[in-house]
Protein backbone atom coordinates (compact mmCIF):
# COMPACT_ATOMS: atom_id res chain seq x y z
CA UNK A 1 0.00 0.00 0.00
CA UNK A 2 1.34 3.37 -0.93
CA UNK A 3 -1.39 5.38 0.76
CA UNK A 4 -3.65 4.59 3.67
CA UNK A 5 -6.97 6.27 3.39
CA UNK A 6 -9.62 4.98 5.73
CA UNK A 7 -13.14 5.82 4.63
CA UNK A 8 -15.07 3.23 6.63
CA UNK A 9 -15.90 5.02 9.88
CA UNK A 10 -19.36 3.52 9.91
CA UNK A 11 -17.70 0.14 10.54
CA UNK A 12 -15.12 1.27 13.08
CA UNK A 13 -13.55 4.49 14.27
CA UNK A 14 -9.97 4.83 15.48
CA UNK A 15 -9.81 5.70 19.17
CA UNK A 16 -8.82 9.25 20.03
CA UNK A 17 -5.49 9.42 21.88
CA UNK A 18 -7.31 11.13 24.77
CA UNK A 19 -9.68 8.18 24.92
CA UNK A 20 -6.92 5.58 25.12
CA UNK A 21 -5.07 7.67 27.68
CA UNK A 22 -8.17 7.88 29.84
CA UNK A 23 -8.69 4.13 29.62
CA UNK A 24 -5.17 3.05 30.51
CA UNK A 25 -5.35 3.61 34.29
CA UNK A 26 -8.35 1.27 34.36
CA UNK A 27 -6.33 -1.41 32.59
CA UNK A 28 -3.54 -0.91 35.11
CA UNK A 29 -3.85 0.25 38.70
CA UNK A 30 -7.61 0.89 38.77
CA UNK A 31 -8.54 -2.64 37.79
CA UNK A 32 -10.91 -3.01 40.76
CA UNK A 33 -14.57 -3.92 40.65
CA UNK A 34 -16.82 -0.85 40.92
CA UNK A 35 -19.07 -2.85 43.24
CA UNK A 36 -16.26 -3.41 45.73
CA UNK A 37 -16.72 -1.54 48.98
CA UNK A 38 -13.01 -1.36 49.77
CA UNK A 39 -10.58 1.21 48.42
CA UNK A 40 -10.02 -0.70 45.16
CA UNK A 41 -13.64 -0.03 44.22
CA UNK A 42 -13.48 3.73 44.67
CA UNK A 43 -11.73 4.83 41.48
CA UNK A 44 -13.69 2.52 39.16
CA UNK A 45 -16.96 3.56 40.80
CA UNK A 46 -16.09 7.22 40.43
CA UNK A 47 -15.08 6.62 36.82
CA UNK A 48 -18.44 5.05 36.02
CA UNK A 49 -20.25 8.01 37.54
CA UNK A 50 -18.19 10.47 35.51
CA UNK A 51 -18.71 8.53 32.27
CA UNK A 52 -22.42 8.26 32.96
CA UNK A 53 -22.67 12.02 33.32
CA UNK A 54 -20.61 12.55 30.16
CA UNK A 55 -22.84 10.24 28.13
CA UNK A 56 -25.99 11.78 29.62
CA UNK A 57 -24.58 15.17 28.65
CA UNK A 58 -24.03 14.12 25.05
CA UNK A 59 -27.71 13.27 24.53
CA UNK A 60 -29.21 15.91 26.79
CA UNK A 61 -30.46 13.46 29.42
CA UNK A 62 -31.69 15.06 32.60
CA UNK A 63 -30.37 12.37 34.91
CA UNK A 64 -27.21 10.30 34.55
CA UNK A 65 -28.99 7.33 36.22
CA UNK A 66 -31.13 7.10 33.10
CA UNK A 67 -28.07 5.88 31.18
CA UNK A 68 -27.63 2.11 31.19
CA UNK A 69 -24.28 0.95 29.90
CA UNK A 70 -24.26 -2.09 27.62
CA UNK A 71 -21.56 -3.93 25.71
CA UNK A 72 -22.55 -2.79 22.21
CA UNK A 73 -25.26 -1.10 20.21
CA UNK A 74 -26.71 -4.48 19.37
CA UNK A 75 -27.18 -5.29 23.05
CA UNK A 76 -28.76 -1.89 23.70
CA UNK A 77 -31.17 -2.39 20.81
CA UNK A 78 -32.04 -5.92 21.91
CA UNK A 79 -32.61 -4.66 25.43
CA UNK A 80 -34.75 -1.77 24.23
CA UNK A 81 -36.98 -3.76 21.92
CA UNK A 82 -37.37 -6.86 24.05
CA UNK A 83 -37.28 -5.08 27.40
CA UNK A 84 -39.76 -2.34 26.58
CA UNK A 85 -42.12 -4.70 24.77
CA UNK A 86 -42.05 -7.36 27.49
CA UNK A 87 -42.67 -4.72 30.16
CA UNK A 88 -45.80 -3.53 28.33
CA UNK A 89 -47.19 -6.82 27.15
CA UNK A 90 -50.18 -6.65 29.44
CA UNK A 91 -51.29 -3.62 27.43
CA UNK A 92 -50.74 -5.10 24.00
CA UNK A 93 -48.38 -6.95 21.75
CA UNK A 94 -47.97 -4.86 18.64
CA UNK A 95 -44.77 -3.10 17.62
CA UNK A 96 -44.12 -0.58 14.88
CA UNK A 97 -40.68 -0.22 13.32
CA UNK A 98 -39.40 0.96 9.98
CA UNK A 99 -38.34 -1.39 7.21
CA UNK A 100 -34.76 -0.08 7.35
CA UNK A 101 -33.90 -0.65 11.01
CA UNK A 102 -30.57 -2.21 11.91
CA UNK A 103 -30.66 -6.01 12.13
CA UNK A 104 -30.39 -5.83 15.91
CA UNK A 105 -33.79 -4.12 15.98
CA UNK A 106 -35.28 -6.09 13.12
CA UNK A 107 -34.34 -9.51 14.49
CA UNK A 108 -35.26 -8.60 18.04
CA UNK A 109 -38.72 -7.93 16.68
CA UNK A 110 -38.64 -11.26 14.83
CA UNK A 111 -37.81 -13.00 18.10
CA UNK A 112 -40.72 -11.29 19.80
CA UNK A 113 -42.97 -12.41 16.97
CA UNK A 114 -42.09 -15.95 17.97
CA UNK A 115 -43.35 -15.06 21.45
CA UNK A 116 -46.73 -13.89 20.24
CA UNK A 117 -46.02 -10.28 19.39
CA UNK A 118 -46.94 -8.81 16.01
CA UNK A 119 -45.17 -6.07 14.12
CA UNK A 120 -45.75 -3.57 11.36
CA UNK A 121 -42.78 -2.53 9.26
CA UNK A 122 -43.41 0.98 7.98
CA UNK A 123 -42.00 1.47 4.46
CA UNK A 124 -39.63 4.22 3.37
CA UNK A 125 -39.55 6.32 0.22
CA UNK A 126 -36.80 6.20 -2.38
CA UNK A 127 -34.63 8.45 -0.19
CA UNK A 128 -35.02 6.18 2.82
CA UNK A 129 -37.42 8.53 4.59
CA UNK A 130 -40.16 7.30 6.88
CA UNK A 131 -43.44 9.19 6.57
CA UNK A 132 -44.55 10.17 10.11
CA UNK A 133 -48.16 9.76 9.12
CA UNK A 134 -47.46 6.19 8.04
CA UNK A 135 -46.14 5.48 11.52
CA UNK A 136 -49.26 7.04 13.03
CA UNK A 137 -51.44 4.97 10.73
CA UNK A 138 -49.59 1.78 11.69
CA UNK A 139 -50.35 2.34 15.37
CA UNK A 140 -53.14 0.10 16.62
CA UNK A 141 -54.96 0.07 19.94
CA UNK A 142 -52.61 -2.71 21.09
CA UNK A 143 -49.41 -1.04 19.90
CA UNK A 144 -47.00 -0.78 22.80
CA UNK A 145 -43.78 0.33 21.13
CA UNK A 146 -42.55 2.34 18.19
CA UNK A 147 -38.88 2.08 17.26
CA UNK A 148 -37.58 4.22 14.42
CA UNK A 149 -33.87 4.82 13.95
CA UNK A 150 -32.65 8.39 14.06
CA UNK A 151 -30.59 8.00 10.92
CA UNK A 152 -29.75 5.03 8.79
CA UNK A 153 -26.17 3.79 8.88
CA UNK A 154 -26.08 2.71 5.25
CA UNK A 155 -27.48 5.71 3.43
CA UNK A 156 -27.37 8.36 6.12
CA UNK A 157 -30.97 9.55 5.80
CA UNK A 158 -32.14 11.37 8.92
CA UNK A 159 -35.72 10.62 9.91
CA UNK A 160 -38.27 13.24 10.94
CA UNK A 161 -38.12 11.71 14.39
CA UNK A 162 -39.65 14.63 16.29
CA UNK A 163 -42.79 14.49 14.18
CA UNK A 164 -42.96 10.72 14.54
CA UNK A 165 -42.63 10.98 18.30
CA UNK A 166 -45.32 13.60 18.49
CA UNK A 167 -47.81 11.47 16.58
CA UNK A 168 -46.92 8.41 18.68
CA UNK A 169 -47.28 10.38 21.91
CA UNK A 170 -50.72 11.56 20.88
CA UNK A 171 -51.53 7.86 20.68
CA UNK A 172 -49.76 7.20 23.99
CA UNK A 173 -47.20 4.84 22.52
CA UNK A 174 -43.60 5.03 23.80
CA UNK A 175 -40.87 5.55 21.22
CA UNK A 176 -37.37 4.10 21.10
CA UNK A 177 -34.79 5.28 18.63
CA UNK A 178 -31.54 3.70 17.49
CA UNK A 179 -29.22 6.69 17.40
CA UNK A 180 -25.98 4.76 16.80
CA UNK A 181 -25.45 6.64 13.55
CA UNK A 182 -26.23 10.11 14.92
CA UNK A 183 -25.28 10.32 18.61
CA UNK A 184 -21.84 11.87 18.82
CA UNK A 185 -22.04 13.07 15.23
CA UNK A 186 -24.95 15.49 15.04
CA UNK A 187 -26.90 17.07 17.91
CA UNK A 188 -29.11 14.47 19.61
CA UNK A 189 -31.27 15.67 22.47
CA UNK A 190 -33.61 13.18 24.09
CA UNK A 191 -35.74 15.96 25.56
CA UNK A 192 -36.10 17.79 22.31
CA UNK A 193 -36.79 14.61 20.35
CA UNK A 194 -39.25 13.51 23.02
CA UNK A 195 -38.26 9.85 22.85
CA UNK A 196 -38.54 7.41 25.75
CA UNK A 197 -35.44 5.38 25.01
CA UNK A 198 -32.38 5.85 22.84
CA UNK A 199 -29.46 3.65 21.80
CA UNK A 200 -25.97 5.01 21.28
CA UNK A 201 -22.57 3.36 20.83
CA UNK A 202 -19.17 4.71 21.84
CA UNK A 203 -17.29 3.08 19.01
CA UNK A 204 -19.16 5.17 16.49
CA UNK A 205 -17.65 8.38 17.86
CA UNK A 206 -13.98 7.49 18.45
CA UNK A 207 -14.56 5.60 21.67
CA UNK A 208 -13.58 1.98 22.17
CA UNK A 209 -15.43 -1.16 21.26
CA UNK A 210 -17.19 -2.74 24.22
CA UNK A 211 -19.20 0.21 25.49
CA UNK A 212 -22.58 1.45 24.35
CA UNK A 213 -25.61 2.69 26.20
CA UNK A 214 -29.35 2.63 26.34
CA UNK A 215 -30.85 5.78 27.71
CA UNK A 216 -34.25 5.11 29.24
CA UNK A 217 -36.40 7.95 30.50
CA UNK A 218 -37.10 7.83 34.19
CA UNK A 219 -40.33 6.09 34.94
CA UNK A 220 -40.25 3.95 31.81
CA UNK A 221 -40.57 0.29 32.67
CA UNK A 222 -38.10 -2.07 31.05
CA UNK A 223 -37.37 -5.73 31.65
CA UNK A 224 -33.65 -6.50 31.81
CA UNK A 225 -32.07 -8.51 29.02
CA UNK A 226 -29.24 -9.71 31.27
CA UNK A 227 -30.51 -11.04 34.57
CA UNK A 228 -28.22 -11.35 37.53
CA UNK A 229 -26.60 -9.03 40.01
CA UNK A 230 -27.24 -5.44 40.85
CA UNK A 231 -25.13 -3.53 38.38
CA UNK A 232 -26.66 -0.61 36.47
CA UNK A 233 -29.43 -0.31 39.00
CA UNK A 234 -30.44 -3.92 38.43
CA UNK A 235 -31.28 -3.22 34.81
CA UNK A 236 -28.08 -4.61 33.24
CA UNK A 237 -26.17 -7.12 35.28
CA UNK A 238 -22.61 -8.20 34.78
CA UNK A 239 -19.33 -6.68 35.87
CA UNK A 240 -19.06 -3.29 34.20
CA UNK A 241 -16.44 -2.92 31.45
CA UNK A 242 -14.88 0.04 33.23
CA UNK A 243 -12.06 0.92 30.80
CA UNK A 244 -14.38 0.86 27.79
CA UNK A 245 -17.06 2.86 29.61
CA UNK A 246 -14.47 5.44 30.66
CA UNK A 247 -13.35 5.66 27.05
CA UNK A 248 -16.90 6.13 25.84
CA UNK A 249 -17.43 8.90 28.37
CA UNK A 250 -14.37 10.83 27.26
CA UNK A 251 -15.25 10.30 23.61
CA UNK A 252 -18.76 11.63 24.33
CA UNK A 253 -17.44 14.74 25.96
CA UNK A 254 -15.05 15.45 23.10
CA UNK A 255 -17.71 14.69 20.50
CA UNK A 256 -20.00 17.24 22.09
CA UNK A 257 -17.30 19.90 22.31
CA UNK A 258 -16.03 19.42 18.76
CA UNK A 259 -19.32 18.71 17.04
CA UNK A 260 -19.66 21.93 15.02
CA UNK A 261 -16.18 21.77 13.56
CA UNK A 262 -16.43 18.04 12.89
CA UNK A 263 -19.73 18.52 11.09
CA UNK A 264 -18.28 21.27 8.91
CA UNK A 265 -15.25 19.18 7.97
CA UNK A 266 -17.24 16.00 7.27
CA UNK A 267 -19.83 17.85 5.25
CA UNK A 268 -17.17 19.27 2.95
CA UNK A 269 -15.70 15.82 2.32
CA UNK A 270 -19.12 14.23 1.93
CA UNK A 271 -20.28 16.81 -0.59
CA UNK A 272 -17.08 16.45 -2.57
CA UNK A 273 -17.69 12.70 -2.79
CA UNK A 274 -21.37 13.10 -3.59
CA UNK A 275 -20.56 15.53 -6.39
CA UNK A 276 -17.37 14.15 -7.85
CA UNK A 277 -17.90 10.40 -7.76
CA UNK A 278 -20.95 10.27 -10.06
CA UNK A 279 -19.18 12.74 -12.36
CA UNK A 280 -16.11 10.51 -12.55
CA UNK A 281 -17.95 7.22 -12.92
CA UNK A 282 -20.89 6.94 -15.27
CA UNK A 283 -23.89 4.93 -14.13
CA UNK A 284 -23.37 5.86 -10.49
CA UNK A 285 -26.38 6.61 -8.31
CA UNK A 286 -26.28 8.53 -5.04
CA UNK A 287 -28.32 6.72 -2.37
CA UNK A 288 -30.05 8.40 0.54
CA UNK A 289 -31.65 11.79 0.88
CA UNK A 290 -30.22 14.78 -0.98
CA UNK A 291 -30.37 17.07 2.06
CA UNK A 292 -31.72 15.18 5.10
CA UNK A 293 -28.56 13.17 5.64
CA UNK A 294 -25.81 12.91 8.23
CA UNK A 295 -22.61 14.78 7.39
CA UNK A 296 -20.37 11.73 7.51
CA UNK A 297 -21.94 9.27 5.11
CA UNK A 298 -21.66 9.33 1.34
CA UNK A 299 -23.31 6.35 -0.31
CA UNK A 300 -23.67 5.17 -3.84
CA UNK A 301 -24.62 2.34 -6.11
CA UNK A 302 -22.25 1.71 -8.96
CA UNK A 303 -24.08 -0.14 -11.68
CA UNK A 304 -23.13 -3.42 -13.38
CA UNK A 305 -20.64 -4.55 -10.76
CA UNK A 306 -20.69 -6.01 -7.29
CA UNK A 307 -19.41 -4.17 -4.21
CA UNK A 308 -17.01 -6.67 -2.70
CA UNK A 309 -14.68 -6.73 -5.68
CA UNK A 310 -14.62 -2.95 -5.71
CA UNK A 311 -13.78 -2.66 -2.07
CA UNK A 312 -11.09 -5.31 -2.23
CA UNK A 313 -9.43 -3.69 -5.21
CA UNK A 314 -9.68 -0.32 -3.47
CA UNK A 315 -8.15 -1.92 -0.40
CA UNK A 316 -5.23 -3.10 -2.50
CA UNK A 317 -4.71 0.59 -3.33
CA UNK A 318 -4.75 1.44 0.39
CA UNK A 319 -8.28 2.77 0.51
CA UNK A 320 -10.84 1.33 2.95
CA UNK A 321 -14.55 1.64 2.20
CA UNK A 322 -17.46 -0.71 2.67
CA UNK A 323 -20.36 -2.05 0.73
CA UNK A 324 -23.83 -2.47 2.12
CA UNK A 325 -24.04 -2.37 5.88
CA UNK A 326 -20.62 -2.35 7.42
CA UNK A 327 -21.82 -4.73 10.08
CA UNK A 328 -23.32 -7.23 7.73
CA UNK A 329 -21.16 -7.24 4.69
CA UNK A 330 -20.50 -10.93 5.22
CA UNK A 331 -24.17 -11.80 5.36
CA UNK A 332 -24.28 -12.29 1.60
CA UNK A 333 -27.67 -10.71 1.38
CA UNK A 334 -28.49 -7.66 -0.60
CA UNK A 335 -29.06 -4.69 1.63
CA UNK A 336 -32.57 -4.65 3.07
CA UNK A 337 -32.24 -0.88 3.30
CA UNK A 338 -31.67 -0.38 -0.41
CA UNK A 339 -34.36 -2.93 -1.16
CA UNK A 340 -36.84 -1.00 1.00
CA UNK A 341 -35.88 2.15 -0.89
CA UNK A 342 -36.82 0.43 -4.13
CA UNK A 343 -33.30 0.07 -5.53
CA UNK A 344 -33.33 -2.90 -7.93
CA UNK A 345 -31.46 -5.84 -6.43
CA UNK A 346 -28.75 -6.05 -9.09
CA UNK A 347 -28.01 -2.35 -8.70
CA UNK A 348 -27.96 -2.68 -4.91
CA UNK A 349 -25.15 -5.22 -5.33
CA UNK A 350 -22.92 -2.36 -6.37
CA UNK A 351 -23.45 -0.38 -3.20
CA UNK A 352 -20.52 1.54 -1.83
CA UNK A 353 -20.41 3.36 1.46
CA UNK A 354 -17.98 6.04 2.54
CA UNK A 355 -17.95 6.62 6.29
CA UNK A 356 -16.18 9.93 6.68
CA UNK A 357 -13.96 10.44 9.69
CA UNK A 358 -12.38 13.38 11.44
CA UNK A 359 -9.08 12.90 9.59
CA UNK A 360 -10.47 12.62 6.09
CA UNK A 361 -9.71 15.51 3.75
CA UNK A 362 -10.41 16.62 0.22
CA UNK A 363 -7.05 15.14 -0.71
CA UNK A 364 -8.49 11.76 0.26
CA UNK A 365 -11.36 12.43 -2.10
CA UNK A 366 -8.85 13.17 -4.86
CA UNK A 367 -7.26 9.81 -4.20
CA UNK A 368 -10.59 8.02 -4.45
CA UNK A 369 -11.49 9.85 -7.63
CA UNK A 370 -8.16 8.76 -9.06
CA UNK A 371 -8.23 5.15 -7.88
CA UNK A 372 -11.83 4.13 -8.29
CA UNK A 373 -12.66 4.73 -11.99
CA UNK A 374 -10.07 2.26 -13.37
CA UNK A 375 -11.21 -0.32 -10.82
CA UNK A 376 -14.81 0.10 -11.85
CA UNK A 377 -13.84 -0.03 -15.49
CA UNK A 378 -11.88 -3.23 -14.98
CA UNK A 379 -14.73 -4.93 -13.15
CA UNK A 380 -17.21 -3.76 -15.73
CA UNK A 381 -15.06 -5.25 -18.46
CA UNK A 382 -15.42 -8.53 -16.63
CA UNK A 383 -19.14 -8.15 -16.04
CA UNK A 384 -21.66 -9.97 -18.21
CA UNK A 385 -24.22 -7.40 -17.07
CA UNK A 386 -22.24 -4.54 -18.50
CA UNK A 387 -21.76 -6.53 -21.65
CA UNK A 388 -25.50 -6.92 -22.02
CA UNK A 389 -26.05 -3.26 -21.28
CA UNK A 390 -23.58 -2.20 -23.96
CA UNK A 391 -25.09 -4.58 -26.49
CA UNK A 392 -28.58 -3.35 -25.68
CA UNK A 393 -27.36 0.22 -26.23
CA UNK A 394 -25.88 -0.73 -29.57
CA UNK A 395 -28.99 -2.63 -30.47
CA UNK A 396 -31.22 0.26 -29.34
Amino acid at each position, binding site marked *: MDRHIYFDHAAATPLLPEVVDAMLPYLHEHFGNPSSLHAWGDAPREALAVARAQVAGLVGAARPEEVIFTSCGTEANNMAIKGLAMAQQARGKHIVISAIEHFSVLYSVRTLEKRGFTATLVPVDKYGLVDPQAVADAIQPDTILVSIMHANGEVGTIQPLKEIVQLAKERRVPVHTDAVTTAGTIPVDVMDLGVDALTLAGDSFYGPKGAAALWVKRGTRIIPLLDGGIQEGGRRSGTENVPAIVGMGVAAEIAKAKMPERIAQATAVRDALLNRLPAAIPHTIVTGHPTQRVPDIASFCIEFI*EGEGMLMLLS*SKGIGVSSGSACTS*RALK*GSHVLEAMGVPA*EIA*QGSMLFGIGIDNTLVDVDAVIEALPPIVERLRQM*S*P*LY*DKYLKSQKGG
Partner: protein
Amino acid sequence: MPVYSEKVMDNFMNPRNVGEIADADGIGEVGNPVCGDMMTFYIKVRDNRLEDVKFKTFGCGAAIAVSSMVSQMATGMTLDEALKLTNASVAEELGGLPTNKLHCSNLGADALHAAIQDYLKKKGGNGDGRKAE
Protein backbone atom coordinates in the same frame (compact mmCIF):
# COMPACT_ATOMS: atom_id res chain seq x y z
CA MET B 1 -5.94 -12.56 8.47
CA PRO B 2 -7.16 -11.84 4.94
CA VAL B 3 -10.58 -13.21 4.12
CA TYR B 4 -9.22 -15.09 1.13
CA SER B 5 -6.27 -17.38 0.55
CA GLU B 6 -3.35 -16.12 -1.49
CA LYS B 7 -4.42 -18.18 -4.45
CA VAL B 8 -7.93 -16.75 -4.37
CA MET B 9 -6.49 -13.26 -4.17
CA ASP B 10 -4.13 -13.92 -7.06
CA ASN B 11 -6.95 -15.22 -9.23
CA PHE B 12 -9.15 -12.31 -8.22
CA MET B 13 -6.54 -9.63 -8.75
CA ASN B 14 -5.20 -11.17 -11.97
CA PRO B 15 -7.99 -13.30 -13.33
CA ARG B 16 -7.00 -15.53 -16.23
CA ASN B 17 -9.15 -16.02 -19.33
CA VAL B 18 -11.49 -13.09 -18.82
CA GLY B 19 -13.46 -12.30 -21.89
CA GLU B 20 -15.74 -13.86 -24.41
CA ILE B 21 -15.21 -16.08 -27.42
CA ALA B 22 -16.89 -14.55 -30.41
CA ASP B 23 -17.51 -17.87 -32.17
CA ALA B 24 -17.93 -19.99 -29.04
CA ASP B 25 -18.98 -23.60 -29.46
CA GLY B 26 -20.92 -23.42 -26.22
CA ILE B 27 -22.08 -20.72 -23.81
CA GLY B 28 -23.25 -21.31 -20.27
CA GLU B 29 -24.83 -18.70 -18.08
CA VAL B 30 -25.71 -19.34 -14.44
CA GLY B 31 -26.62 -17.28 -11.42
CA ASN B 32 -28.60 -14.13 -11.16
CA PRO B 33 -27.40 -10.63 -10.44
CA VAL B 34 -30.29 -10.30 -7.99
CA CYS B 35 -28.59 -12.95 -5.86
CA GLY B 36 -25.22 -11.29 -6.25
CA ASP B 37 -23.44 -13.59 -8.69
CA MET B 38 -23.70 -14.27 -12.37
CA MET B 39 -21.23 -16.09 -14.61
CA THR B 40 -21.08 -16.61 -18.31
CA PHE B 41 -18.66 -19.23 -19.66
CA TYR B 42 -17.60 -19.54 -23.29
CA ILE B 43 -15.91 -22.66 -24.64
CA LYS B 44 -14.17 -23.68 -27.79
CA VAL B 45 -14.09 -27.44 -28.37
CA ARG B 46 -11.66 -29.36 -30.58
CA ASP B 47 -11.35 -33.15 -30.73
CA ASN B 48 -13.65 -33.49 -27.74
CA ARG B 49 -11.33 -31.31 -25.70
CA LEU B 50 -11.74 -27.81 -24.31
CA GLU B 51 -9.35 -25.86 -26.41
CA ASP B 52 -10.28 -22.49 -25.02
CA VAL B 53 -12.36 -21.37 -22.04
CA LYS B 54 -13.27 -17.78 -21.27
CA PHE B 55 -15.66 -16.13 -18.85
CA LYS B 56 -17.36 -13.00 -17.74
CA THR B 57 -18.42 -12.74 -14.13
CA PHE B 58 -20.49 -10.37 -12.07
CA GLY B 59 -19.92 -11.11 -8.41
CA CYS B 60 -17.71 -11.04 -5.38
CA GLY B 61 -13.99 -11.67 -5.28
CA ALA B 62 -14.54 -15.37 -4.75
CA ALA B 63 -16.83 -15.61 -7.76
CA ILE B 64 -14.21 -14.00 -9.97
CA ALA B 65 -11.40 -16.16 -8.58
CA VAL B 66 -13.47 -19.30 -9.01
CA SER B 67 -14.22 -18.40 -12.61
CA SER B 68 -10.57 -17.84 -13.28
CA MET B 69 -9.61 -21.12 -11.64
CA VAL B 70 -12.30 -23.14 -13.39
CA SER B 71 -11.25 -21.74 -16.75
CA GLN B 72 -7.64 -22.74 -16.11
CA MET B 73 -8.48 -26.19 -14.78
CA ALA B 74 -10.86 -26.92 -17.64
CA THR B 75 -8.67 -25.78 -20.49
CA GLY B 76 -7.22 -28.88 -22.15
CA MET B 77 -9.61 -31.29 -20.44
CA THR B 78 -11.77 -33.70 -22.39
CA LEU B 79 -15.47 -32.91 -22.15
CA ASP B 80 -15.96 -35.91 -19.88
CA GLU B 81 -13.19 -34.78 -17.56
CA ALA B 82 -14.57 -31.26 -17.51
CA LEU B 83 -18.06 -32.54 -16.71
CA LYS B 84 -16.58 -34.34 -13.71
CA LEU B 85 -14.90 -31.21 -12.42
CA THR B 86 -16.50 -30.55 -9.03
CA ASN B 87 -16.99 -27.50 -6.87
CA ALA B 88 -14.93 -29.24 -4.18
CA SER B 89 -11.93 -29.68 -6.46
CA VAL B 90 -12.13 -26.04 -7.55
CA ALA B 91 -12.27 -24.83 -3.95
CA GLU B 92 -9.38 -27.10 -3.08
CA GLU B 93 -7.31 -25.87 -5.98
CA LEU B 94 -7.90 -22.33 -4.71
CA GLY B 95 -6.50 -23.21 -1.29
CA GLY B 96 -9.94 -23.17 0.26
CA LEU B 97 -12.81 -20.68 0.35
CA PRO B 98 -14.58 -19.12 3.32
CA THR B 99 -17.59 -21.29 4.17
CA ASN B 100 -19.99 -18.53 3.26
CA LYS B 101 -18.44 -18.34 -0.19
CA LEU B 102 -18.48 -22.03 -1.05
CA HIS B 103 -21.54 -21.54 -3.22
CA CYS B 104 -19.35 -19.55 -5.62
CA SER B 105 -17.41 -22.68 -6.45
CA ASN B 106 -20.67 -24.44 -7.21
CA LEU B 107 -21.55 -21.64 -9.56
CA GLY B 108 -18.23 -21.89 -11.39
CA ALA B 109 -18.51 -25.59 -12.05
CA ASP B 110 -22.14 -25.17 -12.98
CA ALA B 111 -21.38 -22.45 -15.52
CA LEU B 112 -18.72 -24.58 -17.18
CA HIS B 113 -21.01 -27.58 -17.28
CA ALA B 114 -23.79 -25.45 -18.72
CA ALA B 115 -21.50 -24.32 -21.51
CA ILE B 116 -20.59 -27.93 -22.28
CA GLN B 117 -24.24 -28.94 -22.25
CA ASP B 118 -24.96 -26.09 -24.62
CA TYR B 119 -22.24 -27.35 -26.93
CA LEU B 120 -23.51 -30.91 -26.76
CA LYS B 121 -27.05 -29.81 -27.40
CA LYS B 122 -26.07 -27.74 -30.40
CA LYS B 123 -23.98 -30.59 -31.69
CA GLY B 124 -26.79 -33.05 -31.11
CA GLY B 125 -29.08 -30.61 -32.93
CA ASN B 126 -26.54 -30.57 -35.79
CA GLY B 127 -27.48 -34.18 -36.30
CA ASP B 128 -24.08 -35.81 -35.68
CA GLY B 129 -25.79 -38.42 -33.56
CA ARG B 130 -24.15 -37.65 -30.20
CA LYS B 131 -26.62 -36.89 -27.46
CA ALA B 132 -26.14 -34.78 -24.41
CA GLU B 133 -25.40 -37.01 -21.46
